[in-house]
């Protein structure tokens, strides 16, 4: 057990170091700081009530940057290992392919969640400064569900990283993420309006693609609506864990069969 935990820790640490020693994360942080800070000191049309729209814009940026980080980190988990041949010394060590997969996934998740926490702390401080309400329960719920979103998209991107190049994987996962956030809730009603082949395609997407809209608490947070029940939060997290487990199981099958 000690042996296994050391292996998983080593693999996870590698993913975290990869994220933090690259310059692109620093760029994302600086960019978000440059965009978010002025937004919070700007009162649209001199109406304080309209400031919630700047909050909405800020949250949109937090979602965008966190998705870019989550997908970016996970999509780079395997292709560089194959291209630079580091997969050979890695697999020559007494480590199973399942452990490699889990360790890398946990590392990507830890790296993405640490970046997400920084974004939410920045948002919480800036929103608190402006509105005088510091870290309300709905913000914690939004962070919790956003973390669930990261659990799903990193697993999805890891699955893609075993079969696709970094750019192809990023494009595909980016489209799925954006598409499901925008259309996920309306897929069934859209399917009902379509003729037969299109209808079945939309139903297939409805059942196969991850329902990322479940994790989106932006409206509730921005408009200061009350939090949802913790039971619903738990159910959504259960969905995230099941979806991520399915992605990892499929990734394990692909990785086990992969010839290097």
């Amino acid at each position, binding site marked *: 057990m*000690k*042996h*296994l935990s*050391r*292996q998983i*820790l*080593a*693999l996870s*640490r*590698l993913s975290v*170091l*990869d994220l933090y*020693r*690259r310059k692109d994360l620093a760029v994302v942080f600086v960019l978000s700081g440059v965009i978010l800070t002025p937004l919070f000191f700007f009162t649209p049309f001199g109406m304080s009530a309209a400031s919630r729209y700047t909050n909405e814009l800020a949250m949109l940026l937090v979602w965008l940057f966190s998705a870019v980080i989550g997908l970016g980190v996970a999509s780079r988990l395997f292709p560089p290992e194959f291209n*630079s*041949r*580091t997969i*050979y*010394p*890695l*697999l*020559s*060590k*007494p*480590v*199973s392919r399942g452990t490699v997969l889990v360790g890398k996934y946990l590392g990507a998740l830890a790296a993405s969640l640490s970046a997400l926490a920084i974004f939410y702390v920045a948002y919480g401080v800036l929103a608190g400064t402006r509105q005088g309400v510091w870290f309300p329960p709905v913000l914690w719920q939004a962070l919790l569900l956003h973390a669930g979103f990261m659990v799903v998209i990193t697993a999805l991107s890891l699955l893609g990283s075993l079969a696709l190049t970094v750019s192809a994987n990023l494009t595909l996962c980016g489209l799925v993420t954006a598409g499901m956030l925008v259309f996920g809730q309306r897929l069934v009603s859209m399917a009902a309006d379509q003729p037969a082949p299109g209808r079945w395609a939309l139903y297939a997407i409805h059942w196969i693609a991850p329902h990322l809209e479940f994790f989106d608490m932006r409206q509730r947070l921005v408009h200061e609506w009350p939090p949802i029940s913790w039971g619903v939060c738990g159910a959504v997290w259960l969905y995230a864990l099941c979806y991520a487990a399915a992605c990892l199981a499929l990734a394990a099958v692909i990785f086990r069969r992969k*010839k*290097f």
Partner: protein
Amino acid sequence: MDVVKMEGVVKAFGTVRAVDKLSLTVRQGEIMGFLGTNGAGKTTTIKMLLGFFRPDKGRVEVLGGDPCVPSTRAKIGFMPEAAYYYPFLNVRDLLEFYGGLCGMARNAVKRRSEELIARVGLSEAGKKPLRSYSKGMLQRAGIAQALLHDPDLLILDEPFTGLDPLARINLRDLIIDLRRQGKTVFFSSHELSEAELICDRVAIIKRGALVSCGSVQELAGDGERNLERVFLKVLEVDADTHGGGR
């Protein structure tokens, strides 16, 4: 005792037989050179020894176990040909990572890392990221990671490629020193002169099949002492046997 045992091993990729009925043994404490031209099947054989994939036919046994089982690999050290290790790490981070994969405690990794970094001559470059390393320096970092967990069997894929003369001499001394410690070294190479200098036995492979195996002296039965000539002779004999090749 045989550290490596391969019996009638066949591995095909599509219609191409990369390894063809290969039977080979490597004894404990010997240095064995695995020689062949490009595409002869050397790397495929090494990959099977490391359990990256199973043979289609035949049996592979390493240190008395199945190399596909992780615990068997605990006593194998491997250095691949021209790996470009994680560019954002320095050599200490790299060894800490591989030490973790071997299940080593952090203190043990640190102690062993310092010893190996000095041994392969990377002390001065210890804090520099690997992206700034030359090919030869990466090769030396590769040797350090292969030796980190004190393996009984060291498998090296083209270890002399890209090394300057001084680094070659150091690697040669290191391999001989490992034999002195009772370790077994199996390496593939094109560098016949290096193999001739250090190998107890050599195995020559052509189109996946073993064409000759023994000490340089045994292979040169007619008194010929140069491995290069032996290599050419053995391949010619094989070409004659097969009517000029398949």
